[in-house]
């Protein structure tokens, strides 16, 4: 069984939990005491990932420590539809968004770690870089909408969408509002409406799709 070293509040770990859920595969979760324990910085954990980051995915003798690589692995193994079309343009665009998701983690993701887990650093710079990245995403998604599309690459959701979704959907936790990004907001709704979508603290399935709470 594929194992995921995981922390419930981590946006990067959620990328993998979400992908696995959408693919309909069960992972074995190894909870890591990221906060306050800092278990990911221990000597034991360094044997798995010398960089001391989460998530880590282990399948037999394969150890992956980059979430984007994990998305590629899971989709290649279990649901190639999620890789987007393989023509040169689409393939390159997928790589673009996988790399771009790293910029989201380094800006919106850091702003959130600052606000939630008291990480030290330049919060104004992280938020400004987050807005700059959201402007790029908004422009790209608006162009997709003009062409009749919904997703970042091709006609169906792909690992590109899953890579970028978590830190965008959680941006409010880092003090970055999505009010100025209408196309981004509609795209996050489309992801949240997917079949087999799973939640994490701060990211919910569309409430409209939940039945109204029972009145007792």
């Amino acid at each position, binding site marked *: 069984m594929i194992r995921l070293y995981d922390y419930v509040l981590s946006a990067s770990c959620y990328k993998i939990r979400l992908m696995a859920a959408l693919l309909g595969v069960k992972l074995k979760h190894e909870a890591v005491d990221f906060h306050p324990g800092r278990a990911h910085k221990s000597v034991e954990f360094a044997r798995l990932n010398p960089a001391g980051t989460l998530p880590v995915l282990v399948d037999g003798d394969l150890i992956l420590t980059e979430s984007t690589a994990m998305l590629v692995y899971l989709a290649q193994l279990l649901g190639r539809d999620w890789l987007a079309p393989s023509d040169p343009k689409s393939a390159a665009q997928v790589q673009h968004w996988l790399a771009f998701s790293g910029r989201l983690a380094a800006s919106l993701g850091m702003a959130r770690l600052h606000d939630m887990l008291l990480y030290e650093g330049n919060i104004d710079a992280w938020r400004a870089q987050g807005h700059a990245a959201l*402007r790029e995403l*908004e*422009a790209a998604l*608006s*162009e997709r*909408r*003009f*062409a009749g599309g919904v997703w970042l690459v091709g006609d169906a959701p792909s690992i590109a969408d899953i890579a970028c979704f978590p830190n965008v959907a959680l941006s409010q936790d880092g003090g970055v*509002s999505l*009010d*100025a990004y*209408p*196309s981004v*907001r*509609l795209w996050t*709704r489309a992801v949240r409406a997917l079949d087999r979508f799973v939640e994490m603290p701060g990211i919910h399935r*569309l*409430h*409209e799709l939940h039945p*109204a*709470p029972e*009145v*007792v």
Partner: protein
Amino acid sequence: MTPRWTATGLSQDLPKAVAMAGHWQGQDLAVWRSATGRLQAWNDRCPHRGMRLSHGFVRGETLACIYHGWVYGAEGGCKHIPAHPALTPPATIRVAVFACVEQDGVIWVAPADTLGAPTALRGLQPLRSISLTCDVAAVLLVEPALSGEDTLRGLVQIAGQACEVCLLVQHGASGLTLHALCAVGADRIAASRWLEDLRRRAERKGTA
């Protein structure tokens, strides 16, 4: 003088059963569309504890607050309080309602007692809403083909072709927003890139 009708968004960005944030002259609004398509603009504060209603969610013809789930219906009246399910909420629990109309693909808001309609925008199609960190003067400075105060219009060059554009100015809590329209039939991808470029140039000029 600022006209009473202010553009607060584009119809294409507010599908059925969605709520979003809007503004009327510095006043925060929750603008939302019901499941059957009814458009409404309310004060963006939940009467219970002040949560933003634009963060709430639409169920049928009602808007529910994300915080404790109070449900508001037509004309802003509170219909249901989940913590007191048997209670009929008193009529005094009511969200202030604004006038809200849709015309030419633009969502316009004004105080509830406003008469008349917003100015019609003929021959134009909605493009995008964008926010800027500079003021209107900087926009006019970098694009002299545009003129106006609350409605910037002009014939600009987009990908080597003259194109009619219209930028509806909105001043919100977090700065300037432009709701952009371009000539019907114009290439919206090219127009969107022109708009991005305009923003970069205007912001580099800064606030005059």
